[in-house]
């Protein structure tokens, strides 16, 4: 399995890009000589050059530094809620598939309810209630994503428990919880990893869309979407301001999509989602 991963160059390059960007975001303070919110009003709106690699913004802050810190927030906001959504979706999917008709009906009903909303509009309702902040963006991404994850986990779990050895384990009286932990979850893992990787890019796009509309992350915090929002008026005059974060969003989304596709082909070739 690992061998076939290394044969797939697309997956390797994507994974490498993700790792590099993540490292740069994590070690941003070491990489950049500037602080993300240090202003220099005399050096405003400078084009890319030797002093400011990607130029400076309206308050004379270094765009490259802000790009790193913005990626940090955007990655966090993509990875954390996606992971939480995968875990929650997994629990719900297993419960639904393995713990009886009533649980199944209620959980799938609830999943259908959240899936009936256009994600963006539900997220806007959450922004209305909790205001534009890291936590509310996080919450809305979890709510947007868990439903479809739970549905997939449910169907995969159903096919797992049909297998003979689980049937056998059940007949010799092994407890349900033990079967879940020992047999079901390990078998689900490939699916979960693929689901996670494929959901990260949509989380990145959701965050950037909310921030672009001005209802997501708020200044003085920084995220990739917010950077685009704040510089969109200058897109054609001072393109480095908006293009840098936009291209960063594209690279991240592309890499995760590619990695997810490759992982699916390797880990889970039969399923399609």
């Amino acid at each position: 399995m690992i061998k076939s991963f290394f044969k797939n160059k697309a997956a390797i390059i994507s994974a490498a890009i993700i790792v590099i960007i993540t490292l740069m975001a994590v070690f941003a303070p070491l990489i950049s000589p500037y602080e993300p919110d240090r202003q220099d009003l005399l050096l405003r709106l400078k084009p890319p050059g030797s002093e400011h690699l990607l130029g400076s913004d309206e308050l004379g802050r270094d765009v490259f530094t802000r790009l790193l810190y913005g990626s940090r927030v955007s990655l966090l906001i993509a990875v954390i809620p996606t992971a939480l959504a995968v875990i929650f979706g997994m629990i719900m999917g297993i419960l639904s598939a393995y713990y009886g008709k009533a649980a199944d009906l209620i959980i799938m009903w609830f999943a259908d309810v959240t899936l009936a909303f256009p994600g963006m509009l539900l997220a806007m309702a959450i922004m209305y209630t909790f205001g534009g902040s890291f936590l509310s963006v996080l919450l809305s991404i979890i709510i947007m994503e868990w439903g479809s994850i739970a549905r997939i986990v449910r169907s995969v779990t159903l096919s797992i428990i049909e297998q003979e050895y689980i049937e056998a384990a059940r007949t010799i009286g092994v407890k349900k919880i033990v079967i879940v932990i020992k047999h079901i979850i390990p078998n689900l893992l490939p699916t979960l990893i693929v689901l996670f990787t494929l959901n990260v890019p949509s989380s990145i796009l959701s965050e950037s869309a909310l921030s672009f509309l001005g209802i997501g992350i708020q200044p003085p915090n920084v995220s990739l979407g917010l950077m685009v929002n704040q510089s969109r008026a200058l897109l054609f005059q001072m393109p480095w301001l908006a293009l840098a974060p936009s291209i960063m969003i594209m690279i991240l989304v592309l890499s995760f999509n590619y990695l997810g596709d490759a992982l699916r082909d390797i880990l889970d070739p039969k399923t399609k989602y």
Partner: protein
Amino acid sequence: MKAFKKVFISIMLVSALLSSAACGGAKDSGQKDAPSADTKSESTEAAAPESSESSAEGSADGKNESSAGDGAINIAVSSDIVTMDVHKTSNDYIVPMNVFDTLFEVVLNSDGSTSIEKSLVEDYSVSDDGLVYSITLKDGIVFSDGTPLSSEDVKFTFERMLTLPDSEQTDYGASIQGAKELMDGSAKELSGIKVEDDTHLTITLSEPFSGFLAQLATPSTIILSKSLVTEAGDDFGILPEKTIGSGPYIVSSWERGSGLTLEYNPLYWGPEPSVKKVNIKVMDASSMDMAFQKGDLDILDCQRIDSALVESTYKTKYADSIVSVNRLGINYLILNEKVEPFSDPKVRKAVQMAIDRQAILDSIYNGDGKLEDGIYPSGCLYYSDANQGWLKYDPEASKALLSEAGYADGFDFEISLDSGSDDSVKNVIQIIAQNLKDVGINAEIKSYDHASWLEARNSGDMPSFMAAWTLDYNDPDNVIYTFFGSKDNTVIRSNNYSDEATIKRVAAARGIVDPKEREAEYAALEKKLVQEDAVWVPMFSLKHLYVKGDRVESFVPHWAGWSDIYFKGVTLK
């Protein structure tokens, strides 16, 4: 897997194609010092395909069809109006200003000063005690459907303003005698307005109020038709055909969310305006910028686009077409006395000195404004030069004052930001936070959506915020009373100014009839409030810039804050 590499390369190719288009644009405008010949060639180049295009497309874009001869202009606003009924809004004045008339109007003189002139009024006199205004209306004025305008309509307008359940304009009738009784339901009529005949009436105030004439010249006090408004009911202000005024224009259509169209009212009593039709479109900032440069907009309000764009593009390419007016408004930073440590005037003074206002004005607003050290902005009646020039940026003195007050290590506080405010305001607040950090004060910026922000401010608990107050009418009372005229006002504005004697003086100053005496009192109050008590950090007043397109000969922007324009004042080439 070579495939991946090739796909990757093709992606890069496509994105390079896309971004090269953007960079091309950047180069054009990036050359700030380029001679105008360069930009001209670019504009003719752009104009040529456009004209051929518009004939090819026909109905594709109505804006392109309007030629200079038909008197139509295109204007952009950043959000749609909510209602055309002025009593139900305190924001949307574009229809009230152009479709209705006021009793008086403010005229901007060529030297920049303003004066109040008669509009619907033919003649008037004020009694010696400043209480009774006897007014004669012009004869023969009709609403655009032919209904005559009479004294009854004036009375109806003020009664409706005061009694409408969700009226936003009650302030404008509150000084008239009997307003209180009418509002609390103990009276059925407004006793202060007496109708003598169709064109004669008297308005009696409950106490002298020298700002009253100015109030009668604002869009808030446009005169509505009693019969038409009553008949329209809830449709007034919502349906164009039911929103009928006596002004130079009629509303010919309103498409919610996208804009509205005004057309010349042939029954208008005044001189026929040069502009016969106005297409008002809702656009965001980047659309406005593109549309104006393409010639699809005739007047661009620079306040609605990014100030860096104004500096880089409009002040160079369109330098000769910029029209500016000093906006009668003041930007200020409030420090709430109820929130520690702002109860200590020394701390407030330290903050006053810690903010580099000139740097903010220069970097965020391209220097288009003037520092203000008081309460009334320059251009305001009784503006006092003596109260200016005392406040200097001095971080060292600020630090010294802080340690004197016992805050040598600084302190933490919150600046509340309305997330709906424009990018300039967000940037200014971030600079302020940086300035304060330099003297050791840690200001945390917290965002609220507009409504929550307003609620927090109105509750009197907002620790600190920056905003601008633009005068509704040119009188110092309009600023000072709003912020410091009563206990309630100090709460609503979250300053919680505690000196009750001064608050009483502010209220009493409204009633001073002698102009000299009034001027002296307002100057003294300004000095006491800002210099001694440091009730706020005065920031600056700003110029309001517009760019006019090729077809516009001239227009005079309104001095007041309403970003909307009196279209009758626009002349076309």
